[in-house]
């Protein structure tokens, strides 16, 4: 077993165990933290494939941003885990069946289809000056430019949709108007009154 394989199996087992813990631990905050661990190990597995861009972006986007907000929400909400667990035994057979089917399908894909180990050997190690980022950029902005731009449209749409649904017209909250603040001049606020000193008697 080479060093790389050792690292891979270690990371893979951490990822699988952490993923298992995500759905079994009782505390939702801990579940979210285990999910972060899962993302992290998967990112490192990508590094083993010399896909450094994907690895880092996974950490940057999912670990650094998405999960922070997720954790934020989980902490704010008082989630009653017992209530969530109520139908667990009832749905277990269905869930287990689906899981087994998906697993079987994955096995079929990776052992018989065009993706089995013989037709898809490990890629040759890339040259020293190979840049995963550069390659991805080239592909995204040339070959896949149409779906890439469409995906951008989709994100914009999601943003518009979220704002349209959540921004209520009511603006009773007091808010700052920086433009008005900046435009204020001394003359607007201050009145200088000149008067002679009066004699005190």
């Amino acid at each position, binding site marked *: 077993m080479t060093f790389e394989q050792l690292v891979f199996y270690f990371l893979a087992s951490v990822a699988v165990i952490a993923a298992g813990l995500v759905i079994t631990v009782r505390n939702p905050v801990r579940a979210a933290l285990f999910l972060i661990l899962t993302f992290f190990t998967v990112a490192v597995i990508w590094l083993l494939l010399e896909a450094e861009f994907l690895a880092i972006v996974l950490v940057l986007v999912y670990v650094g941003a998405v999960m922070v907000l997720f954790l934020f929400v989980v902490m704010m909400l008082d989630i009653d885990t017992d209530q969530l667990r109520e139908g667990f035994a009832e749905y277990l057979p269905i869930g287990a069946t689906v899981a087994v089917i998906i697993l079987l399908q994955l096995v079929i894909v990776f052992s018989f289809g065009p993706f089995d180990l013989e037709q898809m050997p490990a890629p040759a190690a890339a040259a020293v000056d190979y840049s995963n980022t550069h390659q991805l950029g080239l592909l995204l902005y040339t070959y896949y430019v149409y779906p890439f731009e*469409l995906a951008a449209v989709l994100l914009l749409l999601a943003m518009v949709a979220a704002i349209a649904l959540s921004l209520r017209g009511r603006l009773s909250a007091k808010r700052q108007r920086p433009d008005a603040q900046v435009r204020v001049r001394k003359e607007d606020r201050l009145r200088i009154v000149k008067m002679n000193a009066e004699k005190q008697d």
Partner: protein
Amino acid sequence: MSNIFADIQLATPEIFVFSMACVILLLDKVTHERMPKASFLLTQLTLLVGLYLVTITVPEGGSIKAFNDMFVLDGMAVLSKQVILFLTFVVLIYSYSYITERKMYRGEYFVLILNAVLGMMVMTSASHFLTIYIGLELLSLSLYTLVAMNRDSDLATEAAMKYFVLGALASGLLLYGMSMIYGATGSLDIETIRSAIQGMESDDTMLILGLVFIIVGIGFKLGVVPFHMWIPDIYQGAPTSVVLFLGTAPKVAAFAFIMRLLVDGFQGLAENWSDMLTIIAVLSMATGNILAIIQTNLKRMLAYSTISHMGYFLLGILSANPNGYSASLFYVIVYSFTSLAAFGLIIMMSRAGFEAEEISDYKGLNKRHPWFAFLVALVMFSMAGIPPTVGFFAKLSVIQALIDVEMYWLAVVAILFAVIGAYYYLRIIKTVYFDKPERNEPITARFGMQFVLSANVFALVLIMPWIGVIMDAVSNAISAMG
């Protein structure tokens, strides 16, 4: 990498629609107080100009691919886009007064509509799993939001939630199916998949599994039995103006979607999907028509009628030959215009605070407003497929397609359920003409809308002399699919 400018030229309508959506999004911030009508008018202008752009970018013969084979422009794409843009144009005319009266008139409403239109346009000219999926998501995301737009209504919120959850599930299934197909063929490009399938055995486990997932995904999106549970709730709960939209244009897009996936991609598996679609179609015709009978809410009844109509629409596709496809396309176009008129009538009857969605609201309409009563009767005739209307020809053409491929028993079943379905459509006519009116407020509707709606309804009958022209256009579109 071919010349990008040539590619962009082919996608001008899509780019134009999206750019205008952005312009409206920004402009609305400025105009929504001073010129509230600006967003609406600009949207309508966009749709008309888009229609014009689609018409002038017709490819010369056969189909042209662009953007590294991810975009395809052919007869079907052009025709579907034209129909979609025109339908949306009419939809917005009908919904204008509805949304202004219910405080739903916001710039985002039109931005979402335009994005949905963009999604449909992308879907109709997609030749790659990536683009077809993104197009579908563009459409779905806009529709989820539009359904939830009336945020003070519990029913609408519930409908949006159901729609979203089931829609996401359907997308997941579809994606899962696509990934299986990718696993089996090693490609996401529809043409490559097609040729890869020809080199494989047709009972390949991977392929069949992928196909099943994709069919389930399509079934959910289309709302056919047994994946129809969401349709009635959404038709009932969502604002009528939104139902008007999601019940018309997306059905045409769904046709293109099915054609791209099943016919373009899985031609080699036609036997398999034809069987699956047969079961779905029979179940839909049965469930839709029978359950529609017991509904008291008109929108809900029309929802079940949609389910049954989608069953009929599948009949043409499952016959798996070009005649069947053009019959289906014809059917879906006719159905879209008919349901446009039907929901248009509901909108016309309703006003702020009164939705006019119970069947009992229409009792004795003839005494209150004979003209509307007549329009209702015509629409119901067309829905039921009774001869002087175009709905009859639509049903006839799909059944004809079945007989061509010698599926006699299916044709018999389809006719049987059409007869059952006629019952509840005729019941509406009976309610309108022979029941005593329960309400007697005057019906107020803008003249412009009345005019367009009347034209819409009469088109369902008066189009008859030109039916051959439409049939030709439809079959040309299908034969030009490459």
